[in-house]
């Protein structure tokens, strides 16, 4: 059955081709488009499930390599286009196709009225194709195809409503910022080839321990370059700025690409190459440090955002930071665990926000109002009008805030416990742990603020609009229900022994993480320490939620139109620490200046046009002028020259 894994890629690919053709030929055939788009994903999920069960019932000794064709037979590089099915890729396979199916289904309702319906589903299918290639690829180059492909689809979908320049710019920003990270990925790939003589993951696991000394410069460089790729794709400092802007795309896209799947590719990459990171303790510390810093930094920004999607975007950046704390600590399974639970609850939050925006948009549309349908200051009291959405989003909020027994609690707690444990031999990890704890507090706070501003208190939408607010249709609420169940109970897939569970996911991933553990083993805290850690985490989550709830409800929130401008620290947070402005000043503007003044005016117009193109013409003209000076028209001169020439030839012949 495992050999059928190519079907998971082929089905969405067929969906993309069919929907792409329909987008050109019959953009109006929406039922057909939804059938193909959703059907392809559900089919892929079915195949993924059988592959997973096959792996579950008959665990192989080594990763199963499904080779499709010989791809690059170049000298000593004999590369197959092959998929690697092992415990890690199987988990990713399930998450991508499973959550992907739900989001596709949700999109049927959300995008119903959009003229670009077929194009949307074509892109969404294509994204799933590349995402699956990314996680299934058995070598760095195959993975890189997926890595670049998801970037392309991300660009296409962020700029889906490209007639608005802001959206098109956001798409470009995402693409360009990601290129910086891709550069790191490629350099790392070349270095791996140089040192290991192979780019296959299986060879890497086999050869790396023999080739690289622990902490050697080579493996540290490789892992740092890999991590540069991760910071781009997974939106970590310093390359995170594209993700909040990526919210310009349709909300289900934000849920699928910019929360559940693509942005977790960096975490997947670190988990996949865990043996290299385990051999490079410095890089692991950098990974965890950047993760902790990003988690804290993004969480503070989320405190003062008013756009409901922007809050969730910074929350995603922050949660991705958590995952990197996990994988940077050596708790690869915990990182992947948080990846999975985050996919559940963050997809739910985004889709819930999508439902809210959908309702708000319809209400404003009905009354021809131009107020901002995404600004939480225009919401309030929506619980009354959209009860289903409220309860589901509340589950997700409890999950992300780390309230037991919801999914996020277990995964977040494990990461923090791992960081605490690592602090024993590397004290700097205590700092990361502390940052993680503060982030947990902030997370609970801003999520409570989001829920309170959106669903509680009095309604601020407007008197005429209020009557139009209602829950989304079943095709949208249905997927939310499934995600709600997963957010509530998803944590049980890796219930730690402390709670009487068997740490299923951790054991499941052991074949993948085992090579790393011999260099970078981790003794998780037990007994009393664990009790205090868990208790502290719960207390912080609840405290944050209560504080966020109280602080938001205490003051009357003015609507977006009436709101006074923020001042002081709130303003700095609302403007995201001015990071975009700083990047603009120190990177973008100098680059533009360099391009305009030096490259365009000096190099292109001066050197290329002036010296090279016109210069050649001038040179031949000048030489021609010199030659024409010989043509005096005076026969005497010709004769002299003729004679000199004749004598010269004679001399050459005789002498």
């Amino acid at each position: 059955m495992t050999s059928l894994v190519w079907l998971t890629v082929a089905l969405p690919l067929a969906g993309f081709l069919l929907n792409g053709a329909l987008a050109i030929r019959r953009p109006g055939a929406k039922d057909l488009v939804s059938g193909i788009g959703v059907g392809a994903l559900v089919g892929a999920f079915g195949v993924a499930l059988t592959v997973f069960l096959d792996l579950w019932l008959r665990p192989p000794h080594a990763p199963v390599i499904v080779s499709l064709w010989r791809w690059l037979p170049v000298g000593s590089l004999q590369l197959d286009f092959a998929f690697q099915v092992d415990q890690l890729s199987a988990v990713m396979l399930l998450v991508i196709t499973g959550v992907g199916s739900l989001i596709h289904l949700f999109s049927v309702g959300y995008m119903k009225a959009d003229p670009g319906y077929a194009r949307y589903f074509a892109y969404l299918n294509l994204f799933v194709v590349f995402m699956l290639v990314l996680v299934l690829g058995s070598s760095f180059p195959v993975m890189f195809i997926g890595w670049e492909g998801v970037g392309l689809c991300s660009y296409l979908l962020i700029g889906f409503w490209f007639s608005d320049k802001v959206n098109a710019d956001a798409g470009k920003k995402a693409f360009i910022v990601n290129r910086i990270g891709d550069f790191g990925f490629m350099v790392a790939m070349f270095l791996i080839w140089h040192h290991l003589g192979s780019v296959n993951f299986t060879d890497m696991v086999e050869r790396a321990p023999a080739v690289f000394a622990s902490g050697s410069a080579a493996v540290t460089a490789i892992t740092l370059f890999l991590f540069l790729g991760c910071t781009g794709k997974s939106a970590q400092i310093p390359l995170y700025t594209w993700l909040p802007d990526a919210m310009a795309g349709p909300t289900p896209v934000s849920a699928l690409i910019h929360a559940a799947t693509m942005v977790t590719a960096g975490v997947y990459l670190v988990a996949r190459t865990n043996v290299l990171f385990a051999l490079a303790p410095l890089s692991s510390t950098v990974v965890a440090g950047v993760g902790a810093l990003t988690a804290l930094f993004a969480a503070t920004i989320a405190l003062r955002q008013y756009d409901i999607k922007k809050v969730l975007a910074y929350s995603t950046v922050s949660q991705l930071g958590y995952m990197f704390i996990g994988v940077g600590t050596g708790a690869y399974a915990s990182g992947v665990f948080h990846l999975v639970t985050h996919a559940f609850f963050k997809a739910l939050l985004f889709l819930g926000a999508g439902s809210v925006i959908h309702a708000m948009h319809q209400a404003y549309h009905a009354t021809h109002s131009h107020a901002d349908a995404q600004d939480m200051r225009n919401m309030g009291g929506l619980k009354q009008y959209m009860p289903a959405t409220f309860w589901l989003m509340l589950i997700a909020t409890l999950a992300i805030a780390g309230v037991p027994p919801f999914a996020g609690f277990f995964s977040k707690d494990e990461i923090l416990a791992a960081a605490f444990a690592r602090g024993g031999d590397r004290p700097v990890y205590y700092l990361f742990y502390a940052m993680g704890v503060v982030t947990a507090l902030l997370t609970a706070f801003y999520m409570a603020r989001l829920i309170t501003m959106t669903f509680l208190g009095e309604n601020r939408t407007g008197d005429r609009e209020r009557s139009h607010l209602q829950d989304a249709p079943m095709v949208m609420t249905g997927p939310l229900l499934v995600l709600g169940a997963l957010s509530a109970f998803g944590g049980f897939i890796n219930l730690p022994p402390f709670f009487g569970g068997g740490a299923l996911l951790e054991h499941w991933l052991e074949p993948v993480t085992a090579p790393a553990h011999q260099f970078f083993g981790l003794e998780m805290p037990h007994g009393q320490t664990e009790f205090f850690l868990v208790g502290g985490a719960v207390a912080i989550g609840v405290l944050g939620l209560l504080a966020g709830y109280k602080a938001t409800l205490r003051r009357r929130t003015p609507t977006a139109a009436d709101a006074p401008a923020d001042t002081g620290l709130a303003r700095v947070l609302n403007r995201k620490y001015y990071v975009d402005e700083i990047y603009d000043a120190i990177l973008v503007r100098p680059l533009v200046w360099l391009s305009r003044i030096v490259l365009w005016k000096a190099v292109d117009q001066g050197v290329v046009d002036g010296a090279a193109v016109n210069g050649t013409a001038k040179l031949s003209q000048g030489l021609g002028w010199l030659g024409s000076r010989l043509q005096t028209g005076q026969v005497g001169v010709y004769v002299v020259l003729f004679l000199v020439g004749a004598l010269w030839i004679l001399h050459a012949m005789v002498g």
Partner: protein
Amino acid sequence: MLLGPALALSAILFSLGVAGVLLRRNAIVLFMCIELMLNAVNLSFVALAQLHGASGYVMVFFVMTVAAAEAAVGLAIIIGIFRHKQSVDLGNINLLRG
């Protein structure tokens, strides 16, 4: 055998011709100098024919034929130029200047 003096005379005549071509500006005189050069070469042909057989004599006839044709064409050109410019001074003839 007067080969040495004959060749020396030929060289002197040829050099005179070259000098004339280089120094004189009258087209007719120039023309005559070219004839002088041709005939200097003819002299050396004849002289060397005594050593190397009859082909030298044959070559002289060829040169004389070509010289005659050249004289006809050349004089015609000079007359044409004179009609046009009222002069056969080479300093005035520079239509081909680049």
